[in-house]
Structure formats: structure tokens, C-alpha cells
């Protein structure tokens, strides 16, 4: 069970390997990586190109919320190990933003907990995205109703 909030990129391979290393009770490892897309959804099917984004967060509260979300996952599912890494700062299209990974004796626990963590994190962890468009403008990404709905299904 671990949470990291960092500016640096992460090595997906090394993180996943470390999560299961030496624990042969683990039958499944589910993971999700969020990546910076080069297009922003503007709603109604419209999209705009994005060259980069800056992720801002609330130091202290971020870690507190991520630990709480992870604790909640451990209460709901039987997990052997879990990891949340969330980056902040300036990221470019294709860059990794977030990693959520859950290892468990049974695949259902790993898969459901992983899905729960990313849905919950999206509506509870204090991060904000400022997208840069090619004309040099920056605009703050609006929270999406679909994210709120995704979290609601776990309540």
C-alpha cells in the first residue's frame, strides 16, 4: 500500500515488478496508466488540439486523500498490494500522468479495486489540469459529469 505524488516520471515496468515481487500468493495484477492526450474534449463531440498541460495540486491534502482512497479500496477488496503514483507539473502529449495498480490473490479483486481507485481519485484528489493549446492559450479543464457518475457507482 503506497501513494506517491511526484514531478518525475515513473518506470511502469519497475513499479509493477516491485508490486508483486516475491509474493506468490498473488494471482492477478491489474493496472491503469493515464496518459496526456493530444486532444481535449470540448463536449458535443468537438475537440481541440493540446500540446501540453500543467497539473497543479494541493500538497498535503493530495497525499491525505490518496491514502484515504487506497484505505477504502483495501477495506472493500482483498488486496495483496496496491500503488498510486500521480504526477504534477508540466506534461506533454503522450506523457504518463497517473498509475494505479492492485495485486490480489484473485483477479476480480485486483480489477475492481483498480477501477475503483482511478474513478474515485478523479473526483476526490485535489489536482487541476491547465491545458495548453497551440495558440499559446491555457485553459483550466472543467470537471466532467461522467467522472462524477463513474465515482457515484461505487458509493
Amino acid at each position, binding site marked *: 500500500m503506497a501513494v506517491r505524488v511526484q514531478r518525475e516520471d515513473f518506470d511502469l515496468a519497475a513499479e509493477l515488478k516491485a508490486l508483486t515481487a516475491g509474493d506468490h500468493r498473488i494471482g492477478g495484477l491489474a493496472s491503469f496508466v*493515464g496518459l496526456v492526450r493530444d486532444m481535449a474534449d470540448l463536449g458535443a463531440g468537438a475537440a481541440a488540439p493540446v500540446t501540453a498541460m500543467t*497539473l*497543479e*495540486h*494541493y500538497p*498535503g*491534502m493530495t497525499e*491525505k486523500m490518496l491514502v484515504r482512497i487506497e484505505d477504502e479500496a483495501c477495506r472493500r477488496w482483498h488486496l495483496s498490494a496496491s500503488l498510486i503514483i*500521480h504526477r504534477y507539473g508540466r506534461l506533454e502529449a503522450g506523457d504518463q*500522468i*497517473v498509475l494505479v495498480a492492485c495485486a490480489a490473490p484473485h483477479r476480480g479483486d485486483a480489477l475492481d479495486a483498480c477501477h475503483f481507485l*482511478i474513478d474515485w*481519485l*478523479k*473526483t*476526490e*484528489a*485535489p*489536482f*487541476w*489540469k*491547465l491545458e495548453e493549446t497551440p495558440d499559446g492559450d491555457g485553459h*483550466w*479543464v*472543467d*470537471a*466532467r459529469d461522467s*467522472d462524477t457518475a463513474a465515482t457515484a457507482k461505487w458509493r
Partner: protein
Amino acid sequence: MKLIYFAWVRDKIGHAEETLAPPANVATVGDLVAWLATVSPGHAAALADMSVVRCAVNQEYVGLSHPLATGDEVAFFPPVTGG
């Protein structure tokens, strides 16, 4: 009282944090929002629509009726968009 602002709330107010001493009749977050709107036009603009602003007191999400105490860390920010 330490006040912290993020994202477009900060952009509208013009700075990321400040220490203010609200008058004694500011007992709740709702009271604080009303008082802050008198501090500057930027504050008023940032907090004009509280349906799109979240508040955390001492790093916990709270509603407008949440009571305030001296020494609280109060943060205002838009709905979160991480992940």
C-alpha cells in the same frame, strides 16, 4: 486565518495564498465567502458561483455550513480534474 486558492480561483483572486483576519461574525464557510467577496473585485469574481467552487478546511472537504476556528487553513478551488 490562512487562505489558499488553486487553479482559476487563484487566477481570479490574483495570488495563491494570504493570511486574513475576518471579523468576529464570520462563523462559517458561508460567512467567510460573503465577507471575502467584499475584500476585492477578484475575490468577488472567484467566489461568485459557489456551485463550481469547492472548499476544504484543514485539508478536508466541507460544505458552506462548516464552522470556522482561529488558525484554520481554508482552501477554495474548482472541482478537481486529476487522473
